[in-house]
């Protein structure tokens, strides 16, 4: 397993309601051979609770990276994105929109809500695996991020 700048497993929050995609993404992380720990939120509300450490998520880790789908039950992906970017304690966490939408307006809206990048889920499995691999590598190994609020972790 590859290390990262952090010297510990990467904390990833995957906000995804489709179990097929959850497993596919986990496979991709595995193929990327990235030392990671993935938490999964099945809907927008869960994601927000997780990030706020509300209710059952009191001991939730602070993610280093958020992979966010847009079409989510309960609260739309945009709302999760807004919550993250509005909260000074969370705003610096890179949020990667990973969605099946290819609509221009979703791309535009995501960036205007300060998403860090927007990726349409590739149709081919090979591509999916390699995209997940490269985006996580890019954000976790290549890009220098400000040191996270480790005291909260």
């Amino acid at each position, binding site marked *: 397993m590859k290390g990262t700048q952090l010297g510990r497993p990467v904390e990833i929050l995957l906000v995804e309601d489709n179990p097929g995609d959850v497993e*596919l993404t986990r*496979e991709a992380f595995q193929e990327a051979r990235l030392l990671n720990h993935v938490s999964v939120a099945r809907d927008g509300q869960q994601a927000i609770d997780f990030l706020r450490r509300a209710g059952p998520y009191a001991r939730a880790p602070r993610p280093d990276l958020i992979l966010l789908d847009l079409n989510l039950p309960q609260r739309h992906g945009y709302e999760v994105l807004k919550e993250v970017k509005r909260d000074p304690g969370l705003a610096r966490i890179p949020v990667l929109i990973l969605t099946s939408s290819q*609509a221009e307006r979703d791309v535009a809206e995501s960036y205007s809500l300060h998403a860090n990048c927007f990726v349409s889920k590739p*149709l*081919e499995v090979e591509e*999916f695996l390699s995209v997940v691999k490269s985006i996580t590598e890019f954000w976790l190994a290549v890009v220098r991020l400000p040191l996270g609020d480790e005291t909260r972790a």
Partner: protein
Amino acid sequence: MHLPENEKTGVLVVGGDADQAGFLTELLARVQGAPFRVHCVERPPIARERSAQGGIDAVLLILPASSALARDAVQELRAQAPRAPVLLLAEREDEALAARLLRAGAEDFLVRPQVSGPALARVIRWAIERHRLREVAVAASREFERQRKERRRAEEVLNNFFVLAVEPLCIIGFDGRFRCLNPAWEALVGASLQQLMETPFLELVHPEDRGATAEEFRQLLAGAQTRAFENRCLAQDGSARWLLWKAASSPEEKLVYAAVHDITVRKQAEEALARSNAELERFAYVASHDLQEPLRMVASYTGLLARRYRGRLDERADRWIAYAVDGARRMQELIHDLLAYSRAQAEAGVLKPASLEAAFDTAVGNVRAAVEETSATITHDLLPTLAARPGQLVQLFQNLLSNALKFRGQDPPRIQVSAQPQGDHWLFAVRDNGVGFDPQDSERIFQLFERRHDKRLYPGTGLGLAICQRIVEAHGGRIWAESGRGAGATFYFTLPALEEEAAA
């Protein structure tokens, strides 16, 4: 009116005996300056011949003995020499006879014993003057009557058109009340003209359009012209009709003249089209998520199966998985292309000046893999900037290039893209040296799902050219293709030039 000064006044003396005629001739000859030329005839019929020769300005009728004959004689003379006044000369005063003969058309009644030379001369001159003035007055009044009739006829013609007009016409006072409406309004509104005349014009307008209509009306009163103002009018049954107004005001009359065109059908079609486009867009959005989602699962997991388990089951399992993977992939292509096809129209939006050169470069970049794989060469003219949607132009070029690369012949593909300005549009041609198509299929190839070749040799959804057609048509152009089998194919399309270019 004046007589020519150097000409003598011609007086025709009719009737009487030689004495009487001689007396009159003598009398007039003695008038100072001898301004009269006197002709004498015995009877009216001869007078006609004489007056026809011209030079007769007045007729002096010496009254015959019988007053009954006198009346006939006056009328006969009036008819024979209508331009000359008829004066009567009697031997004695006779009020009743004078009145009767004046009514019959005589100009004056003189009594011989009372007449002196100068007096007779004055009377004749005045009679001529009066007579001519009367002629002028009669002519003027006839002319006036003729013109009045002509005006009335012209008004009738206009009124006939006003009444016949299929489209509503009206005159509105500056106070906003109708002054005049043609019957087309009855059909439009479903109310009688009487009712309409009593309704203030603004009350006929749909409440939502009243503000804009009142403003337009104000501008009309200020002297502006209304060329194409649209609003809705309320019909009696509660329905709304869309109207297109053309109007002008007449400040002197304080009237507004308006012609109206009922555009309800066009508006409804436009609304229906907008609705259908919006629905199509919603469908496209739903399809891009909800249709793709389960399919992506099938494709991803069959793909993952193929990846992880190839060779670990048996050969048949590998083959079956390959079929599933291939089927899912083709389904994805279809959905993708159908979306592109529906978007080509749904994403109407505004056309903005866009560089075709940039769109072409992007398209070439998108097909780079196929270009390298087939050792193709692509050449192109410098492409213009046109009013367009750049994304669609990329797709257009990309589809045409892919097409040329796909249907290549034995030799490496050579694709040549040319562009020529032609008046108000540009003509583009994408020429290849590939297998071409049967000329009789030149229209069919643009239809949805139409595939010209063997599916196994030439994979694809059969949507590429249909998408091209939609894009070109959505840009206001035309697309067609020419080929002989085995002789390569040329795809032509036109796009409107930018306006300043077309004007140049």
